[in-house]
């Protein structure tokens, strides 16, 4: 299946895009997605290590299963305020 991952801040600058699309197996976990992002975009690896993922606007743990119609986002360490 295809998933689209929203990118922000430095991740957006590195990928030069506000989102990326990836081909993944069926029902991947966040952990698998994380690895695939790093393999496809090696420049994102350092930031991936400190980033959280959000599905449908909630932070999720690495063992969460991703479905293709979810809104998926990579959330680098935040610095609002």
């Amino acid at each position, binding site marked *: 299946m295809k998933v689209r991952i929203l990118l922000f801040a*430095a991740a957006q600058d590195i990928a030069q895009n506000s989102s990326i699309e990836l081909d993944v197996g069926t029902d991947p976990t966040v952990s698998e997605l994380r690895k695939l992002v790093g393999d496809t975009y090696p420049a994102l690896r*350092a930031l991936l290590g400190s980033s959280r993922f*959000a599905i449908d*606007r909630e*932070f999720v743990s690495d063992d969460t299963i991703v479905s293709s119609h979810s809104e998926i986002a990579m959330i680098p*360490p*935040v*610095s*609002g*305020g």
Partner: protein
Amino acid sequence: MIELTSTEIDTQRILDDAYRADCGAVVLFLGTTRQWTKDRETDHLVYDAYQAMAVSKLEELKRAAIDRWPVKHVAIVHRLGRVDIGKASVAVVVASPHREAAFEAAKWLIDELKRQVPIWKQEHWTSQAPSWIHPPSSPGNPTSNPPT
């Protein structure tokens, strides 16, 4: 009120909205743009957000504060885009019958905002390339402007 805005934060309006006949205390926190981080000078900041999630997280924090403390009014406004030196990037206001709750809730809200809400700050320095701030480590960037 929960708001992400690209225009200057209107503190007077925020305070006027916070007055309530059953409240004796209003606490306002403003996060303002510092010009100096040690010896590096900031020209301005730029804020980016995952807007839909940021608003939903801020609403969640507001509900949590109202559940946890006897507070009657909570508003949070955060700037997006360019923010100049000396301007507020964020305002948190809490009104409560007694002052302890207002202080505690306001402090908790800004602490949690900085921890959980997907908003990012980019420092535009006077003398080097801009850097996104991703604490605690920002690979390839100069050390982050320490948190306020």
